[in-house]
């Protein structure tokens, strides 16, 4: 038996009447005068709109009304929530042990309590703009040399007796998923601010810098706090071939601690501060790496290389 293809709905089949064929024939054979029924159409359609107009979804208004009569809880929640969020943001960065100080900045846009437990703990969804910044001493300045831009996040927190802990921090997705993920993470009223988080970058940086300055005070050190882009760094003028050779040499982890630029970087090692300095003598074509204790300037390691054309020869 021949197999036919069943026509889909989006075609018009001549025999398309199925079980109602009888009615269809009755309709065809009906020679009596019939009316279009325009009034019926109009009445039914007016009804469709009118019935809808009789109904209103009784939702948003009470929320606004009660806002004015403001209840008392939670007390001073924004400060503690902010501290909890800040801690959570920095916990993720601890793995970068070589960065001397991690700072953060955050702006809580809104916090919603979503769940109340019998033990008086409350679950919150906290919508915030955040950034983290890692600071190191470079050329004697305290420089933010790593970190993020302004990132909108949703934090899930638990609050109990005025103490807040962060259960999870949700970050937006990258690339083309960024906008949809923001829309899924944030309530509609915050979409615009979350999408334009960069507009709040300066404010977040200011918070981050304040923490860096506080840190400098705590270690009794004076230094200018700047971002890496404000730093004027120069690199040894040794040409591409020799640069590649240096790069290859720096597979040695100890040598890799020295900066690529001409200048210094500081690391805390076993509670002591050491300065790693890279020097370049253009006259003698000498590239020197010197490590000395910050406290007394005592040199603890050094090596130098002569750059001859594309070759880098150890002295």
């Amino acid at each position, binding site marked *: 038996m021949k197999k036919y293809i069943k026509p889909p709905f989006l075609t018009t089949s001549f025999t398309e009447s199925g079980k109602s064929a009888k009615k269809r024939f009755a309709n065809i054979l009906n020679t009596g005068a*019939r009316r279009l029924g325009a009034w019926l159409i109009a009445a039914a359609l007016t009804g*469709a709109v009118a019935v809808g107009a009789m109904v209103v979804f009784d939702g948003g208004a009470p929320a606004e009304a009660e806002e004015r009569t403001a209840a008392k809880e939670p007390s001073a929640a924004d400060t503690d929530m902010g501290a909890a969020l800040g801690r959570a943001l920095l916990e993720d960065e601890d793995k970068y042990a070589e960065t001397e100080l991690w700072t953060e900045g955050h702006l809580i846009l809104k916090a919603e309590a979503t769940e109340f437990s019998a033990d008086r703990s409350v679950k919150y969804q906290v919508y915030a703009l955040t950034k983290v910044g890692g600071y190191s001493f470079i050329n004697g300045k305290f420089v933010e040399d790593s970190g993020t831009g302004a990132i909108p996040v949703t934090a899930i927190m638990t609050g109990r007796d005025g103490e807040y802990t962060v259960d999870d921090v949700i970050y937006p997705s990258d690339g083309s998923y960024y906008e949809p993920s923001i829309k899924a993470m944030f309530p509609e009223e915050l979409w615009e601010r979350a999408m334009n988080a960069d507009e709040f970058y300066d404010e977040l940086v200011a918070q981050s810098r304040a923490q860096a300055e506080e840190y400098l005070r705590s270690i009794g050190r004076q230094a200018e706090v700047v971002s890496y882009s404000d730093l004027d760094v120069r690199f040894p003028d040794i040409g591409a071939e020799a640069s590649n050779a240096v790069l290859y040499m720096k597979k040695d982890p100890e040598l890799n601690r020295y900066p690529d630029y001409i200048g210094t970087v500081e690391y805390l090692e076993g509670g002591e501060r050491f300065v790693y300095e890279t020097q370049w003598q253009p006259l003698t074509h000498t590239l020197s790496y010197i490590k000395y204790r910050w406290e007394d300037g005592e040199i603890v390691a050094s090596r130098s290389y002569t750059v001859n054309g594309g070759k880098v020869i150890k002295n």
Partner: protein
Amino acid sequence: MISSLLIVSLSSSLVIALALVLNRFIDKRYMARGKYIFWLVLAVRLLIPFNFSLPAAPVKIAAPERTVAVAPSESGPPVTVIRDSELGSPRGMTVADSAAYVPIMPLERLLTLIWAAGAALLFMYQLVKYWLFRLAVRPCLTREGEYRGLPVYRCGAVESPMMTGFFRPMILLPEAELTPGELDMVFAHEYVHFRRRDLWYKLLLTAANAVHWFNPLVYLMVRQANRDMEYSCDDAVTRGRDLDFRKRYSMTILKTMKQIGGKGGDTL
């Protein structure tokens, strides 16, 4: 948006239900064309997900109970506390419950996602079925000529005469033999579909059905609209014709139906 869509769906359901009941009584006195137009406008209405509520609407659908409080803070953002019956009761929750808390998506957002997925799925399903059908018939098309500018093809893979193609419409004829008189009726019928852009009408119904995929009455509406579209097409072909012509026209339909075992076309 979901709440607005629900109101549109619910209020339209009342009208659909009323129209389906009335339909039984007005069949003989009113032209199918009136109903055809009615379903068209109702489908457009269903596709506009905005409700126009009166300022003092007599019917109010209660939203989930919600208490909002704003923490009196001197600086910083407002902290809004929402007690939402959908998000868990403040009472009766154990510490273990609280520990096992998994961040949940606000209900409205979740419903919107489910609704959008369902709508996309249903709409895509019909489009894919249509696209697969077009692919399947393509190899067996033999050009037979044209009817008032509309290309006519013979295709052994179809059982019944039909029109297909949104942008390049064509009439497909089955291999079964039809007399010239019968062919004339078939062409006249499919040409009315073409002139009225009934494929687009069906696409609009499909879209309305997809948007309101959760509403069983909309499925019934689509089925009835499809039927009324065919009836009004028959009316257009037989308008001003005598009973003899109408009988022959019916016999032609019956003949093609017999050839396919009375199955007819696809419904949603």
